[in-house]
């Protein structure tokens, strides 16, 4: 059904974004708790969440700072975890690229998994939307996620200051990372990328300045990309060379 106003497009975005509060909320809460346990004040937790808005990158930075990695390694690793938003940016540009610059700047700040996934699917399916309607829909998808992200971080930070000592919270971050990674194992190249990254990371743990992480991550990326190429080429190969 085509939208008649930008307002109705905005509220459609809000509606479609609603289920994602159950995804963003618990992560924000967990970030607040873990960051407070790591020694951040409520103000620092909130600034972190407002300035960065990127769950996995925030967790990565927190872990590496606790490991006392050099600042530049913390930044490179956390940004690498967040590289996918550059892909999202690229994917949305054909639909939003003609909007005014200030709107695109706001949209960039709010670009997260949820706003990308919902908006891209919507714009692809509904070719009749105007650029202002698309922008309105996009901002609509961000509204609840944003409220929940900030609110959850605050609640988590508040809870974190009251938790009893002696909980095995040192392992909360690894569990959070594993739970984020597990659903990403969609294809064989994803599995190969992760497997190579794990092996290299374990071997490279002695490399100073936490550079082992960068080395392992790069090796994993290259392995995944190469595996994708080989597997795509598969149907072109004779059947007996297909299976190895």
């Amino acid at each position, binding site marked *: 059904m085509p939208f008649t106003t930008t307002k109705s497009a905005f509220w459609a975005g809000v509606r479609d974004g609603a289920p994602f509060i159950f995804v963003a909320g618990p992560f924000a809460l967990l970030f607040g708790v873990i960051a407070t346990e790591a020694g951040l004040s409520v103000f620092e937790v909130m600034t972190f969440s407002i300035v960065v808005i990127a769950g996995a990158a925030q967790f990565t930075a927190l872990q590496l700072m606790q490991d006392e990695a050099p600042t530049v390694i913390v*930044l490179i690793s956390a940004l690498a975890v967040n590289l996918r938003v550059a892909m999202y940016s690229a994917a949305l540009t054909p639909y939003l690229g003609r909007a005014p610059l200030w709107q695109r700047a706001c949209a960039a700040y709010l670009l997260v998994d949820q706003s990308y996934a919902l908006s891209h699917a919507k714009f692809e399916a509904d070719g009749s939307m105007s650029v202002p309607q698309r922008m309105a829909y996009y901002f609509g998808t961000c509204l609840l996620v944003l409220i929940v992200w900030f609110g959850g971080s605050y609640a988590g930070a508040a809870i974190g200051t009251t938790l009893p000592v002696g909980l095995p919270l040192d392992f909360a971050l690894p569990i959070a990372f594993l739970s984020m990674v*597990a*659903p990403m194992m969609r294809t064989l190249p994803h599995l190969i990328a992760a497997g190579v990254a794990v092996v290299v990371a374990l071997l490279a743990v002695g490399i100073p300045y936490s550079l082992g992480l960068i080395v392992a991550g790069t090796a994993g990326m290259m*392995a995944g990309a190469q595996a994708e190429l080989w597997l795509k080429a598969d149907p072109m190969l004779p059947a007996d060379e297909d299976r190895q």
Partner: protein
Amino acid sequence: MDKGTLWVVIFGLGVGSFLLRFAFLGFVGDRPLPAWLVRHLRYTAVAILPALVAPLVVYSGEGGSTDPTRLGAARVTLAVGIWTRNVFAAIGAGAGTLFLLVYLLG
């Protein structure tokens, strides 16, 4: 944790993340990306996160040994996550396993 470092990381990450998000929307327009770049970008998170977590699991004990409670919790988290594709089922199962094993093994 050093507070000076913390603020550098917060604002460095903020600026860096914004630039990543703005890169194409703002600067590039709708020119297509080279295929090899997109192909590598697809595997960044799936490579970096396991690389980050693997040493934390395997060298979780004292002096670089493996702590069986942490290893057990990690295995359960991963298995439930792959099986259910549900982040929260995985976190719940992993945390539950960790508490249980810490309680049982002391």
